[in-house]
């Protein structure tokens, strides 16, 4: 079986293509090597009016939809600067992978991704370009942003506690006899077992493991 998602699941490819092209007539699917690229103009539409446009290239990697699509602004308009949330290689950090469950949960389509995180990102860029702040706020860069995110989610400022939660989320299985990550000395099943279970349902193990590695 092919390791390329669009060959392994041509029906999914076709479905996403038809859906995206019907809603965004200026975005086109192209297969280049192992990648599926969605290239063209991404419009910010509100109440039927196009408020702004960005030239974009969105790459769907071989393991799509497991991995997040990689978004680039290719018109040379947005600086590749940390303040604008563009990495050194020109890719945009449209959202924190750990937050994916909220904005683009498993089973959501590429169209949902475009209408959600991608639209939010470029809407923010247009406002920032005009001197406004980021309309929905912004996470700090790198590990600090991950700490902020989990800090808000778990209502703690303690990095040690966040790491303990992430250990539970990234583990193959979270066992009830483990000490609770909140650090009060109780067992997981007697304390925050339900919280850990809820996190495990939302956040991919791989994302939690990567975040744990980053903030340690």
């Amino acid at each position, binding site marked *: 079986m092919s390791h390329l998602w669009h060959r392994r699941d041509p029906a999914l490819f076709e479905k996403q293509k038809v859906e995206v*092209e019907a809603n965004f*007539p*200026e*975005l*086109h699917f*192209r297969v280049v090597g192992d990648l599926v690229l969605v*290239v*063209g*103009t991404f*419009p*910010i539409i*509100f*109440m039927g*009016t*196009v*408020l*702004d*446009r960005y*030239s*974009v290239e969105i790459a769907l990697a071989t393991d799509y939809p497991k991995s997040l699509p990689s978004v680039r602004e*290719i*018109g*040379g*308009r*947005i*600086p*590749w*600067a*940390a*303040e604008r*949330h563009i*990495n050194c290689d*020109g890719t945009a*950090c*449209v*959202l*924190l992978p750990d*937050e994916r469950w*909220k*904005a683009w949960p498993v089973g959501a389509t590429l169209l949902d991704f475009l209408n*959600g*995180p991608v639209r*939010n*990102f470029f*809407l*923010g860029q*247009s*406002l920032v370009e*005009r001197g*406004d702040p*980021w*309309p*929905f706020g*912004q*996470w700090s*860069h*790198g*590990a*600090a*942003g991950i700490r902020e995110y989990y800090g808000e989610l778990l209502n703690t400022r303690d990095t040690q506690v966040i790491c303990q939660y992430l250990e539970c989320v990234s583990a193959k299985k979270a066992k009830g006899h483990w000490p609770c990550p909140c650090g009060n000395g109780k067992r997981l099943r007697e304390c925050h077992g339900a919280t850990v279970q809820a996190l495990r349902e939302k956040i991919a193990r791989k994302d939690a493991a990567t975040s744990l590695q980053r903030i340690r």
Partner: protein
Amino acid sequence: MTTNSYLSKVLASQTLGDESNELKALQERRAEVEKFLRQHFEGSSPTIRYGGSKAKGTMIRESYDLDIACYFPRDDTAAGETLEEIYANVRNVLEKKYLVEPKASALRLKDLNTQTRGVDFHIDVVPGRFTDDEKSDAFLYISTGEKKRLKTNLDVHIKHVKDSGVIDAIRLMKLWKVRNGLPIRNFVLELAVIKLLKSKKDAARSTQLEHIWTEFRDNIENLYVEDPANPSGNDLSHLLNSTMKGTLAAGAGRTLALIGTSGWEAVFGPVDEKKETEKTEALRRAAAAVVTPTRPWLREA
């Protein structure tokens, strides 16, 4: 509004006036690049000429560029023994001041400053060497493909496009290309438009565009373009190969279908007459209406 008055409005919205910020910035940057190149290749006395969409009259707001041809005398070797060396040396020099994105024969200049890194300056520097002392034809280095040398003539290219009589159609087709992210080179698209409209110069713009898209959709395998600067010598077939033709045919097919179902406004969008302040307000309202907000992050600290 008739289709042709709509297309006129589209063209007007894409026109950059001489006093526009974009053109002023381009002119300032042009002077800066020219001075920089002259300083670094003082001993070689390069000839600096300007081309690109500004010179051809095909500029559009959403995709404009200025080509700065930096041609060295036929017998000069200080800038490099070979064309490849000239290309590499000019690139090395430019990289001291700019973020350089190498293209097949040109070097695209972008901002290198930390805060504005990657912002496009819309300038391509094209290094080359004159073929003789007349200083009209030049050889360029081609970094991609098998053939590594191309004979060209900037003035012939500019004249070919400027005198084509189909500038408006070229500008609209460039806008179509940009909006749809089509990878065809502007130069090749210009040649294709000029060729396809040879007998339709006086037709209405909508008729011209529909003709081009119909030809792209139904007959593109028979479309070949020639470089007016060297018709027999420069083979452009790799720039309009079967993959490119397939991409253009698919794009043209979708556009024609879109006109059929939703009309011309679906192709180029509504003509924007909103003022900047109104736009900002509308963007704020759009942000306030977002149901699932997400915050941007950055992988690198």
